């Protein structure tokens, strides 16, 4: 549309030029033609008047002498003038005197002469002129000439038309050349405008080609584009900001809606009673949930009537707490008994209320202000805690019962422990005394009268001594076993490899057995009591040494297997082994699978091992076959991160 408009400007300009030059030419042509026609007629009139004078002069004598023949001859001379179609001479009295008519011309001569005049009659110019001689009117001449105005006009118009055509042509050409100076910058501008519109690119600029008004127009256009570009950018930015804001707002609104929904859901699913009262603590509107819980009709609970549904014994406390809260506009909480319509009894409820300080729905908890602003209204809740109370009471009772039982048991245990302690104390003291005496006195007997005794007596004395010693050792082992349960453990991180190596070296020094192959694998660090675990290793290793003593080549292997929860240590030997049927008896106190004569020992060692490992939270077991060696395993829990 813009394009067409601008194109039409081009044509309009052209049309303007053409129409204006055409109008000029028409006006000028008309003026010229008018002048020409007038001159033509005057010239023709003058020529005709001169002709009439000549004829009058020539014919005056004839008229004077009334010689019609001469007059006719004079008129006949007009043959030389082809334009004159007819001529006539009239006498002073008005009668036709002589006449002339061009051949082929049929002109009707007037009957009477007229006054002197030149006028046009149709396509002829007619002249009347008096013939005067010496101041005397002799007659009148009449001439009728051909007046060919139309032809002359046609010629004239043809020339004029040609001139106009030419001038229009030239004018159009020039104007079309000149107009491009004006229209081209405008067209370029319109093109840019179109591009801007289509591409929405406000960085485009129209080229300035001249310094005239069009140039200013281009400048103004470019400035306007820049301005629009800036505005557009600002608009886009603000739109983006707006969109962002809208998104944020919609997110917030969604969150708000969700939160409201949640609260609504919460309120509706809560078994609680929600109520609202005015700042004096009066129920002002209907409280559905209150009515439902208490069964109190509206006219009763309105105002302060709601208080009466609390247990009479609790009302005093309620009134006191409530009036303090009202006075201070502070949050209110109380546990009291409220009438429950459905179960037809009082139930314990938790009564809570917060004051709404201002119109924004801020509660005292929100505003967090110290100065006591007056509450506008109160929002409260009532939660049935009867079941909870009952459960709490039951739990409390159970706990008390449990505690009583625990302390009872503890006391019993303490007594048992005390008994055990005094038992082991008396064992260590009283039981050893006679043994000591047996051993001591038999030693004295041997030392002082050994020589006087016979060989058999000495043998018997030796048996008494050694058995007394064994008895003493048994008592010692038993005591150390019972002590284990009471000793406090000192847990620390232990280098098990080092512990095993040291223990083994110590034991091996005391032992004189067969050639021994001792393999010690990679052992992890483990947590435990150094003394106790040292005792475990000592027991297991001395066992292994003891039971391989009869092998030609003894082999003892110590290793460990680790997993996420525990370390499993083992001691493997190629010794006498054991019957797997009795493997459960291995770890019992004084349980022995081998005769004393076969292998020394009193059956406390493995029981000690088991007790120590159990105290460490581990497990002990053994695998073996008679005469095919034995493997003893024990585990220690992994204490990750606790050293």
């Amino acid at each position, binding site marked *: 549309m813009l394009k067409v408009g601008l194109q039409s400007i081009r044509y309009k300009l052209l049309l303007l030029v053409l129409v204006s030059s055409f109008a000029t030419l028409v006006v000028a042509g008309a003026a010229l033609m008018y002048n020409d026609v007038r001159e033509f007629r005057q010239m023709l009139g003058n020529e005709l008047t001169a002709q009439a004078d000549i004829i009058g002069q020539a014919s005056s004598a004839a008229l004077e002498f009334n010689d019609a023949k001469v007059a006719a001859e004079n008129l006949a001379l007009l043959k030389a003038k082809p334009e004159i179609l007819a001529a006539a001479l009239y006498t002073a009295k008005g009668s036709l005197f002589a006449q002339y008519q061009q051949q082929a011309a049929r002109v009707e001569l007037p009957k009477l002469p007229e006054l002197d005049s030149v006028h046009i009659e149709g396509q002829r110019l007619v002249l009347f002129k008096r013939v005067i001689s010496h101041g005397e009117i002799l007659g009148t001449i009449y001439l009728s000439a051909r007046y060919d105005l139309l032809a002359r006009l046609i010629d004239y118009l043809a020339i004029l038309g040609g001139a106009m055509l030419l001038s229009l042509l030239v004018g159009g050409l020039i104007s079309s050349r000149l107009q491009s100076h004006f229209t081209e910058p405008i067209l370029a501008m319109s093109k840019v405008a179109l591009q801007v519109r289509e591409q929405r690119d406000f960085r485009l600029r129209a080229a300035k080609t001249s310094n005239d008004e069009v140039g200013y127009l281009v400048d103004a256009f470019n400035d306007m584009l820049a301005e629009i570009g800036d505005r557009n950018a600002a608009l886009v930015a603000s739109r983006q900001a707006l969109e962002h804001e809208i998104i944020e707002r919609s997110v917030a609104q969604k969150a708000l809606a969700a939160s409201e929904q949640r609260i609504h859901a919460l309120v509706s699913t809560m078994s609680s009673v929600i109520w609202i009262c005015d700042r004096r603590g009066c129920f002002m509107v209907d409280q559905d949930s209150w009515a439902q819980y208490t069964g109190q009709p509206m006219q009763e609970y309105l105002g302060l009537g709601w208080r009466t549904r609390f247990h009479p014994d609790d009302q005093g406390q309620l009134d006191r707490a409530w009036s303090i809260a009202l006075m201070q506009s502070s949050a209110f909480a109380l546990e009291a008994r409220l009438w429950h319509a459905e179960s037809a009894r009082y139930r314990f409820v938790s009564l809570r209320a917060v004051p709404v300080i201002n119109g924004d729905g801020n509660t005292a908890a929100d505003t967090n202000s110290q100065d006591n602003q007056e509450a506008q209204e109160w929002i409260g809740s009532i939660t049935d805690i009867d079941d909870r109370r009952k459960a709490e009471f039951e739990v409390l009772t159970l706990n008390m019962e449990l505690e009583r039982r625990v302390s009872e048991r503890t006391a019993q245990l303490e007594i048992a422990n005390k008994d055990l302690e005094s038992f082991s104390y008396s064992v260590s003291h009283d039981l*050893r005394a006679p043994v000591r005496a047996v051993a001591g*006195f038999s030693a004295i007997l041997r030392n002082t009268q050994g020589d006087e005794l016979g060989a058999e007596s000495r043998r018997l004395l030796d048996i008494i001594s050694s058995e007394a*010693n064994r008895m003493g050792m048994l008592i010692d082992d038993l005591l150390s076993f019972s002590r284990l349960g009471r000793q406090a453990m000192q847990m620390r991180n232990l280098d098990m490899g080092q512990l095993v190596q040291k223990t083994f070296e110590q034991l091996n020094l005391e032992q004189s057995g067969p050639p021994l192959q001792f393999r010690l694998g990679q052992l992890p660090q483990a947590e435990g009591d150094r003394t106790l675990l040292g005792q475990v290793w000592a027991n297991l290793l001395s066992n292994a040494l003891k039971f391989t003593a009869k092998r030609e080549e003894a082999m003892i292997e110590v290793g460990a297997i680790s997993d996420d929860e525990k370390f499993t240590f083992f001691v493997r030997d190629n010794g006498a082994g054991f019957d797997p049927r009795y493997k459960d008896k291995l770890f019992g106190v004084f349980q022995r699978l081998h005769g004393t004569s076969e292998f020394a020992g009193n059956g406390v060692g493995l029981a000690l091992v088991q007790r120590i490992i159990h105290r460490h939270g581990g497990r002990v077991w053994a695998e073996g076959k008679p005469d095919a060696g034995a493997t003893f395993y024990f585990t220690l829990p992994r204490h990750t991160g606790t050293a």
Partner: protein
Amino acid sequence: MEQFEQVHILLVEDNPLDAELTLYGLQTDHLRNPITWVKDGQEALDYIFRQGAYHEREDILPGLILLDLKMPKVDGMDVLAALKADAHTRRIPVVVMTSSREECDIVKSYDLGANSYVVKPVNFEGISTVAKQAGLYWMMVNVRPPR
């Protein structure tokens, strides 16, 4: 032997057999010290502080006390506490001789100021041997406090 002062040993022991074995061990060629044997804690306190049956006793303090712990009436710990609480008797070396290996007994004895703790053995050496060794050490090796 003459250069050594005759040091009086007080044996506090309720078990007559243990007492006999101890006395047997102490009365060797090397040790000819006078030994007094009292049979319980109360008698020991009476003897040391010259009271009761011993109120007319000569005012000479024993140079070494061998003290059993578990005794009727006043036990060894009470005797030890009384000895170490009194300025006159505080410096007398006290060797606790007992059957108990209990840690609590060992700790408590040393805390009360025992100078030595000996467990009566039941093995080959016998109580006599241990008593002898202890006597020799405290009489001959150890430098006693001045009177």
